């Protein structure tokens, strides 16, 4: 997809003009006229001021020059924006000009003709999307997935595509399904949820493996909150998942001084080891907990690593949506101002404690198989041993002649 986030670094950031049509560029005259009038007035004002206060003359001329430069930059920015919009439109037009449209449910795929098993992949992906997002998945009808299949065996250069996904046309249905699930153009959730999740909410096609990975985190994460969660204290789980009523503090996530020192020295040692903070870092290393906590508090909240990774929070959201039924995703999004824990509980249709307890039980049940050898592997190893021993029996060393 083309990201046309063209933010203007200049002083003035006017609103982005409407999308240009294919044939016309948006005229910039009215804005220029406004600017000219403003500038004229400013010049008049400047003349008056110059006449009255001669010592400030040099300052005013600098101001006028800077203002002129800002205006000029704003004009350039508008023109660049209009050109980029035109390019976007042309790209979109080019991408949409292909003939094949595949619809499964609300999932709509536009693609060039190719042997890609798109329909099969869409048929697999749609139920997953529908079950996760519920009625909200209907938004996909307005946002087609654009796929450009290309021949992977040719070295002929192809024109680059800036909209949609380029996919080799020998991709399997399973891989294509994963691609569709991972890139379904759903509207992004609200900012608090996105920040809590560290990204958009996507369907999970390896739920068992995800839960097993979270189990390993529960056992190995260097945090007392996580350890408490593993041992059955639900408040530890809530703290580790950051779903409490109030935002978790450093002390909630890392309650002991040893944890805080370890976190600071391992994750932020280089960051604080210079300038004004190096002395505090040395104090922290030598055992001062107040120094460690002070340094950690000086960091923005989003920078502090949470005790459990994002995949743990994903498993919690998926569980809530699974328990809550088709309307769960809608309920999750309905009140962006509420704490995430309350939103998840509303989505799941149960209390926060019950949801967290259920999550913990699911994670503990997903304990990975510790020894990476299937039970039949010993039989196979013995079989190979017998085979090679048999090869030794057939040696020709004793044959005469």
């Amino acid at each position, binding site marked *: 997809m083309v990201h046309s986030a063209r933010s203007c670094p200049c002083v003035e950031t006017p609103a982005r003009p409407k999308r240009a049509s294919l044939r016309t560029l948006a005229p910039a005259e009215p804005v220029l006229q406004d600017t000219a009038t403003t500038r004229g007035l400013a010049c008049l004002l400047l003349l008056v001021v110059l006449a009255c206060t001669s010592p400030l003359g040099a300052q005013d001329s600098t101001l006028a020059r800077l203002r002129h430069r800002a205006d000029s930059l704003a004009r350039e920015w508008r023109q660049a924006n209009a050109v980029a919009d035109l390019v976007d439109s042309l790209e979109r037009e080019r991408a949409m000009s292909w003939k094949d449209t595949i619809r499964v449910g609300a999932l709509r795929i536009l693609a060039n003709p190719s042997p890609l098993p798109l329909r099969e992949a869409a048929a697999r992906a749609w139920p997953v999307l529908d079950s996760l997002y519920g009625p909200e998945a209907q938004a996909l009808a307005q946002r087609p997935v654009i796929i450009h299949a290309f021949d992977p065996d040719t070295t002929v250069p192809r024109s680059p595509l800036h909209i949609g996904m380029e996919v080799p046309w020998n991709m399997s249905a399973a891989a294509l399904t994963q691609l569709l699930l991972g890139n379904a153009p759903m509207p992004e959730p609200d900012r608090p949820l996105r920040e809590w999740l560290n990204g958009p909410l996507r369907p999970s096609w390896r739920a068992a493996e995800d839960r097993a990975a979270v189990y390993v985190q529960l*056992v190995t*994460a260097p945090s007392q909150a996580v350890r408490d969660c593993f041992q059955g204290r639900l408040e530890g789980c809530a703290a580790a998942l950051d779903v409490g009523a109030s935002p978790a503090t450093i002390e909630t996530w890392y309650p002991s001084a040893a944890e805080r020192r370890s976190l600071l020295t391992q994750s932020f040692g280089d960051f604080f080891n210079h300038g004004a903070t190096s002395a505090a870092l040395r104090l922290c290393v030598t055992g001062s907990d107040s120094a460690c906590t002070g340094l950690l508090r000086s960091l923005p909240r989003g920078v502090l690593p949470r005790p459990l990774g994002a995949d743990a929070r994903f498993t919690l959201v998926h569980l809530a949506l699974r328990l809550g039924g088709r309307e769960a995703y809608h309920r999750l999004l309905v009140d962006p101002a509420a704490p995430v824990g309350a939103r998840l509980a509303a989505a799941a249709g149960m209390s926060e404690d019950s949801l967290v307890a259920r999550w913990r039980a699911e994670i503990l049940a997903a304990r990975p198989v*510790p020894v*990476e*050898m299937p039970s039949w592997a010993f039989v*196979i190893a013995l079989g190979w041993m017998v085979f*090679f021993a048999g*090869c030794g*029996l057939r040696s020709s060393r004793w044959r005469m002649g």
Partner: protein
Amino acid sequence: MFRALLYSQWKWSRLIVVLGTVAGFALPIISLQGAARADRGPLQAQELLRAVQSWGSLYPVLAAALGLLVAIATWAPDHRGRHVHALSLPLPRWRYVLLRFGSGVTVLAGPVLAVLVGALLATTLASLPVGLQGYPLALALRFAMAVLVAYAVFFAVSAGTARTAGVILGVIGSVIVVQIVANVANVELDLLGKLQVVILNWPGPLAVFTGRWMLVDV
């Protein structure tokens, strides 16, 4: 007859076996030394697992080395004596080979038992963080399988003639040469990769050597 062959086997390979036994006993204990330290915090499970995994890569190396050296030691005196002693025995060849194989397997029991005892001792003495568990039996069983497979492979190669060894080396060399030529000619041919998958993945012969060798895991 078996006792006589076992005695000769022990005589030829005792240095290897003793060293292997010491290494097999020490390896699990060294790999868990961090877990037994008094100053180890309860939150260092990740570091402990990392250390166990790092040391764990030495188990298949030790197994392969033991199998190779004992297999060579099994046949080396016969090769040196041009098999006169073996031919003078009132035994058919197949029985002689089986007895030799059995004697080799018997002396290899020492290092395998050492790994088992060492692993049991290490996991008993270590204070493992909650959630982590020791798997001494599974590790020792896997080590035993790896030692036996390695021994059987090298036993078969050592029992053969120079011609047999030449044929095996020739086949391996040919595969490498074909792969190099294919790469040079820009042909999409991944012989080595496929061979690796066949040999190192289950049910391949060397699959027992691959993967994580964890004495302690979740």
